[in-house]
């Protein structure tokens, strides 16, 4: 469904964040991107919905060229691409409900939404989304009154409002403790099983092994690996993360 071709991103200050990256994502995949901090994972994910404009290369979403889309077309494309962020990116002072409803902004009448008016159907949809992630009872609390794990679930509910075909998740569990990491990734896994393609960057290898259907690895903006999770052996690991790296597990805490 998604084709990335020769993608390069050079930031205005000269940093080359991505260098000639190409890969394909098939329908229904749970593709995980790994790589050291600064290897370009966030840049890659943000190029796909063009929160960042790539310098060179093409991105095709079901044959629609994202890189060439006009700003109107781009908003249409973005409606179907959900995004989950490491820092949740909720409006902390707004209610959980408002945060979830804002995921619907691409669909609704702009004038009504500017006046803060939402249809019955959208409100029901928002409550249903919150119910799916198990925090329907928090709908009218302020977002910053929730714990980190609950806030990320609000982030997922907001994404569900978009009825996405593709979810981009940029280190969705990096701010959470290991137990919560699994609960959040299980929601993503569930959505993936229902047919939503997931593109997710992760830090911990045990999580990669547990959730990924396929993995690509970036190093200094270059794709250095593409394959199945079980193909990442000790040698590959050293190649991706460097000689001194130790494998760290998200779940070491419980497993002793």
């Amino acid at each position, binding site marked *: 469904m998604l084709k990335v071709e020769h993608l390069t991103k050079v930031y205005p200050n000269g940093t080359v964040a991505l260098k000639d990256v190409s890969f394909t994502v098939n329908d229904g995949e749970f593709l995980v991107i790994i790589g050291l901090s600064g290897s370009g994972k966030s840049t890659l994910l943000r190029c796909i919905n063009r929160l960042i404009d790539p310098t060179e290369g093409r991105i095709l979403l079901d044959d629609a060229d994202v890189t060439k889309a006009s700003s109107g077309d781009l*908003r249409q494309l973005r409606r179907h691409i959900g995004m989950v962020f490491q820092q949740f990116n909720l409006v902390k002072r707004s209610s959980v409900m408002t945060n979830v409803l804002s995921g619907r902004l691409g669909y609704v009448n702009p004038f009504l939404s500017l006046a803060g008016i939402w249809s019955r159907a959208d409100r029901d949809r928002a409550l249903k989304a919150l119910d799916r992630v198990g925090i329907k009872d928090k709908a009218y609390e302020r977002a910053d009154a929730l714990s980190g794990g609950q806030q990320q679930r609000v982030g997922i509910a907001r994404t569900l409002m978009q009825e996405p075909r593709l979810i981009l998740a940029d280190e969705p569990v990096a701010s959470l403790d290991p137990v919560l990491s699994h609960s959040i990734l299980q929601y993503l896994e569930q959505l993936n099983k229902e047919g939503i393609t997931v593109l997710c960057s992760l830090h911990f290898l045990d999580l990669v092994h547990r959730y990924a259907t396929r993995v690509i690895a970036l190093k200094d903006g270059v794709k250095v690996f593409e394959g199945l999770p079980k193909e990442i052996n000790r040698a590959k690991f050293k190649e991706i993360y460097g000689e001194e790296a130790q494998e760290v597990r998200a779940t070491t805490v419980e497993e002793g």
Partner: protein
Amino acid sequence: MATKAPSPQADRSPIVAGLLSLILPGLGQVYGRQQYRGGVIFISELLAVLTAVWYKVPAWYAAPAIIWIWNVWDAVGAARGRLRSTLLPIAAALIMGYGIGWQITNIDLPALTRNSHRAAMILAPMLRPDFLSQVEVTNTAWAPVEVPCGPNPPASTNTINGITVTISPNCGKLNDALTLQASGLWPNTETLIQWSTPIGDRLPLGKGFITALYVPADAQGNLNVVIHVSPNALTAAPDPTLPLEHRVYLTQSHPQAAMQLSKNGAYVVDGIIQTLFLAFMSTTLGALLAVPFSFLAARNLMGGNPLTLSVYFIVRTILNILRSIEPLIIAIIFVVIVGLGPFAGMIAITLHTIAALGKLYSEVIEGIDPGPLEAIRATGGNWLQMVRYAVIPQIVPPFASFTLFRWDINVRTSTIIGFVGGGGIGFYLYQWIIKGDFRAVSSSFIAIAIIVIILDYVSARVRSRLV
């Protein structure tokens, strides 16, 4: 302060360092690779010497001398790779600072007790604030007198309110004796007798012409008394030889049980209302105008290209300058331009509010979390939706909180802006202080305290809900 300097190395000659610092304070430290320390020492010594010279008190030369000697010792230390404690020179400078400060502020503690009688003079009337007065029914009449005598003196008898007043003779020079007769007054009631000049100034006719003259009417309501033309009757006359009609007024009054706002009490109410609206208008107007400036003064919005960046610097500079000028001073300028009154005060406080809120607002904008903006863009929302759902919720509560706080400050400023003619309670207060009417001063103090306390409380309550 010297912590950032590279740690000294013991590779310089202590003798050279000491000599250099003896010639020019700080030079030895520079030689010992302590450039920053040397600079600070040089500037401190220079300031200490200049201050001592300026104030011409020989004792003050001790401080620069101590710093100079210490600096030589320090330079030797620096050359040997040791940093000396800065306690001594700092203490010397502080003692000098306090000494000169004492001298400059004319501290005169005995004055606090020496003039206690003045305090009593002020405090006694202040304990009886002039706000309410008893309702009185009055009975008034008058008769004309010509001063000095002219060819056609006015009729000497005048009847008003059933009271007939006769003065004979019906003209005279200053200090002449006149016989005043009246009938139809309230019987057995004190009657106040006053001289009224052609421009309406009421002059007292009692002892020495400085106290009020009270004469009782008899059981029939008649009164008969000799008065003298006030020696001050012609003080305001343009030509003392021109005969003009003056009047003698008779006033009786019966106090009633009811209370009413006194004349000054009404002024206090009027002044407080003016003050509140002055603050209200300048806060709301200032807040509205501050919004566009705050966007121009927010670095995260304006840092994009050199053009917007220069707009940012210009707006910042203007706001900083404007904010550093007290509203009282701005008001003086606008009193000259638009005249005395609340309008001048309003402009001054509005300008200051724009500057103060513009800065605070811009800091709020600079501090917003870009995450939600990114999230709204990612859902396919347009620019306006992003502002509505990601920017406004982040900035409105702190904006409102800062604005309320400003209102609080502006009410205080509005109470004194009248001292320079900017309207509000301060305008009356200033005049009462000058006239020495401390009863009215006291009632305005109380009124100001009450509204400031109430607003303080309300704004704190509302603000605590906003955060």
